[in-house]
């Protein structure tokens, strides 16, 4: 009989899970617009007239089909809430821990729709004063989606 019967074993499993995700038609349209035209586009609910974001075939609130009334969200908005990450966290989509130097923010676009994105400003003190912001688009290498915007930059008024 072995002496180390109390030794506790662990079994590692490190294989990443691979996927081929589709944007579908609605988010696909938004991807196409950011990629081609540097435009954020949502669809407006035919009933409540709110913008559904990210675009979907059904308005969550009214529970009816949204239809395909596309509307621009615009590039400017107001920061409602933000936070920044002090410690690096595991990002399963890239498969390692990474820090996010740019603060995460909820932004109310002037079109009335609210979105989640990053802020350019990283200084905690200056961040407190950031209210009005504008999207800074990637000039090159846009592939579609929210990463086509680098971050939101503080603007006056």
């Amino acid at each position: 009989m072995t002496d180390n019967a109390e030794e506790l074993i662990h079994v590692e499993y490190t294989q990443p899970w691979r996927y081929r995700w589709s944007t579908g038609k609605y988010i696909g349209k938004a991807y196409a617009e950011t990629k081609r035209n540097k435009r954020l586009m949502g669809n407006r609910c035919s009933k409540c007239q709110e913008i559904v974001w990210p675009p979907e075939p059904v308005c969550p609130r009214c529970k009816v089909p949204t239809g395909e009334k596309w509307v621009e969200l615009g590039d400017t908005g107001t920061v409602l809430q933000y936070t920044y990450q002090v410690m690096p966290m595991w990002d399963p989509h890239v498969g390692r821990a990474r820090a996010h130097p740019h603060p995460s923010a909820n932004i109310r676009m002037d079109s009335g729709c609210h979105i989640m994105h990053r802020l350019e400003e990283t200084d905690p003190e200056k961040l407190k004063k950031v209210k009005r912001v504008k999207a800074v688009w990637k000039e090159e290498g846009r592939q579609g989606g929210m990463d086509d915007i680098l971050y939101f930059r503080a603007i006056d008024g």
Partner: protein
Amino acid sequence: MEGWTIEQLEGKDVFVIEGQVAIPNNYSAGIVGSRFLVELRDNCRIMGIRCPKCDRCYVPPKSTCMECFGQLTEFVEVGKSGTLLTFTVDHHTTPVQTASPPNVYGIIKLDGADTGLLHLIGEVDGKAVKSGMRLEAVFNEERRGSILDIKYFRPAEAG
């Protein structure tokens, strides 16, 4: 994003993204499972656990009896040889398999055990494998506390 590819479907405003979810996992074998794996690694012994009430010996061992829900603690060593209950010669290729096909898998009832152990079968042509045949465990030289410390089961010498 890093490690992702985004491709637009031809003629459509639809995109397909190839990406991953990569979260390493580290599973506790627990006291009972660890005991089994440590014995394999250190002593090349195959341990079962016996329910005194149901007189049933489980290999690999488990802490709860499936018949009476009793808590099991009585380890017993079982044989390194056993009888093949069923098998398959597996030809399909998958991203998770450890060796390229064909692989032969079987469920082996070791002498002294009341349950079957799933494992690989080696040193024999797939066509020569038959249910009911006698098999014996072949251990790896280097063992690390894994069910794969048993390299595979091969046809046993006469008897």
